[in-house]
Each structure stands twice: as structure tokens, then as C-alpha cells.
């Protein structure tokens, strides 16, 4: 684990309901889970992440597996919560530029803050431009560190299907980045806001 604790000890304690183990797991997994939900355009990413972890902690007693398996399981729950949220809201996910967490953490060097802000906005726009399934595959690979097989499991799809989605997503991404580069001019930051 990134915390340096032995995963088996943490898992055993968490399965017994120990608060300290919950906290260790939360600190380890919550940033990527929340980022995943946010980049999917969830309206309330923090709430969805909270619901995800409540589901994880209350259902942890029935889990068995290693750290990778736990990560895949957590993202499976997060993805289902996200899909449920989409259905509840009956509309396509909307990319949100209201990144309050980011705003809360910028500070210090103005130029760095601007670059960070611009970079984050660009990532949101690039992700938002991808179809849901392609975005899901790429984000699960990048943020959750899942393999293609694990992504297939999370999404309930076949491995070839996921590979195809990944290929199309990467291609679309490259095209958008290249187009953006042409429009903003050579030497510009590659993730400046795209002009549509």
C-alpha cells in the first residue's frame, strides 16, 4: 500500500470494522475514485464518492482478494454509482468546470496556478469530448491502474470490446490534441482550453 502498511493487516482490520483501517483505505483510494467521478462529469462527485465508500466499507466483510482486486472492486462500485446517477438524472454526463477542490488548493506562484487551472480545464474538456465508454476505459486505466481485463470486469464487457474502446478513445484523444495544437499554434501548452 502507498501508506507503507501491510495490506493484509489493513484489510483484516477493515473487515472487522476498524475505523483506522477505513481511514487508511479511504486515503489511499478516495483521490482516484473522486477524480474518476469528477472527470466523468458527475454533478456531485464528492457525494458519489462518499456513497461508494460507504458501500465499500459496509460490504467489505464479503470481499476476498489482494490489493489489486480490492481496487478493481472499489471502482466497480464507483462506476455503478456513477451509472445510477446518470440514470437518475436522465441525461448525459456534463463536464463541470466547477472544480472547487482545485480552487481551494491553488496558491503560491501565480503562473503555476494558472497553468494548473488551465491544464485541469483542458483535461476536463478532452475527457468530456469522449464517448462515455471510451472515457470510462481510459480513466479506469489511468486513474485506477486497472488492466484491460480488470476494466472489462468493471464494465461488464468482453476484453476485446474493451481493447477496441481503448483504441478508439486513444485515437480520438490524439486527434483532438493535434487539432488543438494546430489551432493554438506551435509551442503553446498542449492542454490549453480547446477552441471548438
Amino acid at each position: 500500500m502507498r501508506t507503507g502498511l501491510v495490506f493484509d493487516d489493513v484489510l483484516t482490520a477493515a473487515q472487522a470494522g476498524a475505523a483506522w483501517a477505513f481511514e487508511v483505505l479511504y486515503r489511499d483510494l478516495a483521490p482516484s475514485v473522486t477524480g474518476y467521478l469528477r472527470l466523468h462529469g458527475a454533478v456531485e462527485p464528492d457525494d458519489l464518492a462518499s456513497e461508494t465508500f460507504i458501500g465499500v466499507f459496509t460490504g467489505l466483510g464479503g470481499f476476498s482478494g489482494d490489493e489489486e482486486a480490492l481496487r478493481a472492486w472499489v471502482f466497480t462500485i464507483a462506476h455503478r454509482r456513477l451509472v445510477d446517477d446518470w440514470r437518475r438524472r436522465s441525461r448525459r454526463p456534463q463536464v463541470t468546470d466547477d472544480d472547487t477542490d482545485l480552487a481551494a488548493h491553488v496558491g503560491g506562484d501565480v503562473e503555476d496556478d494558472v497553468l494548473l487551472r488551465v491544464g485541469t480545464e483542458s483535461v476536463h474538456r478532452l475527457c468530456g469530448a469522449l464517448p462515455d465508454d471510451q472515457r470510462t476505459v481510459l480513466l479506469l486505466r489511468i486513474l485506477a491502474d486497472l488492466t484491460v481485463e480488470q476494466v472489462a470486469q468493471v464494465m461488464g464487457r468482453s476484453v476485446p470490446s474493451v481493447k477496441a474502446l481503448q483504441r478508439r478513445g486513444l485515437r480520438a484523444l490524439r486527434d483532438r490534441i493535434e487539432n488543438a495544437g494546430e489551432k493554438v499554434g506551435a509551442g503553446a501548452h498542449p492542454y490549453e482550453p480547446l477552441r471548438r
Partner: protein
Amino acid sequence: MTTPADDLALEEAFEASLAGRPVPCEAADLAAFTGAVRSTATQPGRPNAALAELLATGLLTDQTSPSVRTAGAAGTLPSRRARVRRRRFAMIFPALLAKLLSAGAVAQAATGAGVVLVVATGAGATGVLGDEVQDTITGVVAGDEATDEVATEDETIVDDETTDPGDVEVPVTTELPVEAELTPEEWVEAGPAEGQSFGEWVSLSAHRDDLREWLRSEGRNFGSMVRDWAQKNGIDSDAELVEEGVDLADLTEEPTSEPVAGEDTTQVDDEAEDTEVASTERGNGRGNGNGNGGGNNGRGNK
């Protein structure tokens, strides 16, 4: 025009960027995108109320953390217990001293050696003695109490919060390890140990809560136990008992129980274990006080 070879190169570059390996120049933008995505996911977000409660309390009431980070919280209970034991020690030690002063010369020598050993053990456990003395005491204690788990536990507890040199006497000297190994029944059956006076044995017996509980469960009280034992061993009258340093009236009234229980209950009323102990002591005091009130008054007026 994108060819399958381009796609393959793109996928390989993507895998390389995920693994942190160098990527070709053509895929530098893709690698930068991967890094930018990851950099947006460094904060856990704000947990809602339900999750915050879960993170704070878990799903248990009793949690023991093996981590150093949470050791302080986990150590709260032992620290309180140590404080309670220190208070008990502070009250019991003068009583022991009084007994010692009223005992005969042989008894004084024997008991005095025991007290020195116990106090030195306490000082040694806290590590305030010089190296030579520390080593000597460690050796002696190790020889005498090698299997004493109670003493080991107390040392650990004391070490947790010993920051004040005034706490040197912290180890619980009233929990004499040798006696603690015997059940109440065995204790009564065995009587005084070799070299131990009858008065000393009675004095030590008086501080065994488990003995009193056992006696209660047998429908007896402490005084009757002492009297029975004395009669079995040829000490027939109260005068002879007094000569042995035993005052039956004193033993049955438990004069210090009431205030001790009151103080402990006030200080640790949120601590189940100690509260239980305190209430037991209070119960003893009330029960015995009712039964022996007349006799005590007579003693008090002497």
C-alpha cells in the same frame, strides 16, 4: 489517415506512459495527458456526514490499532487504569506502613524486605535508577517474577505515560504476584507462607477483592474466615489473634473502602472496568458497615 500500425504504436505508448516508462516523442502529448489526468486526482474530496461518521467510529465499539499513528488513542484506557492504580497505591501504602509499624520485629523485617523489593521494582521499571542498581534489580526481579504477566503489563502501562518523575512509585505494589497465583480457596487453605506471620497473611488477604467475593459467594465474611482459620490452627481467642497482629473488628469493617470507591467512581465513571471495581468496593463497605456498626463504634471510642 490512421493506419493499424499507428494505432499499435499509440497503444504501446499509452501502456508505456501508464507504467512510467519513456514514450516516443510522437506520443509525448499522450503521456502529458496521462500525467495531467493523474494530477487532477490527488485529493480525496469531502466525505458526507455518513461517511465521516464511519471513518471516525468504524463499525466496532472496541478497536485496537496496531499502528503507531493511532497508538495514542488506543492507549487511553490503560492510562486511566494506571492513574486509578496510582491512587489506590497512594491510599494503600500508608495502611501497609501502619501494619508494618504495629507488627513484631520478625514480621517487620520480613515485610520491610518485601516493601523494599516492591518499591525498588517500581523504580526499576520506570528506569530512573542508575545502571548498576537497575541491573541488579532487573536481575532479582527477573529471578523472582519471571512468569509474572501482571507485573509486565503494569510496567508497560506505566511506560506509556511516565513523563513525570513524581510517578516513580506507579507500579501496583498491592498486586503481589506470588499470592495472585493462588485462587481464593487455595489461598485460604494454604494459610501463611513460610516465614510469613499470621498477621501479615491476614493483612494481605484483606486486600484481595477476589477473596472477598469468593467468601461472599460461600456465605461467609472475611472475619469469619480468619477466625475459622485461626481456630483450626490453635489460635482460639481474640486476644491471641491480637498478639498475632490481627484485629478482627478492623478486618471486617474495611474502613477505607467507602472513600476509595467514591473517588474512583467519580474519576473514572466512563470506564466500565474500573467502575465495576469501584462499585464492588462500595458494595463491600456498605454491607460490612451495616453488619458491624456497633462494634466499630466501640473501637472508635477507645
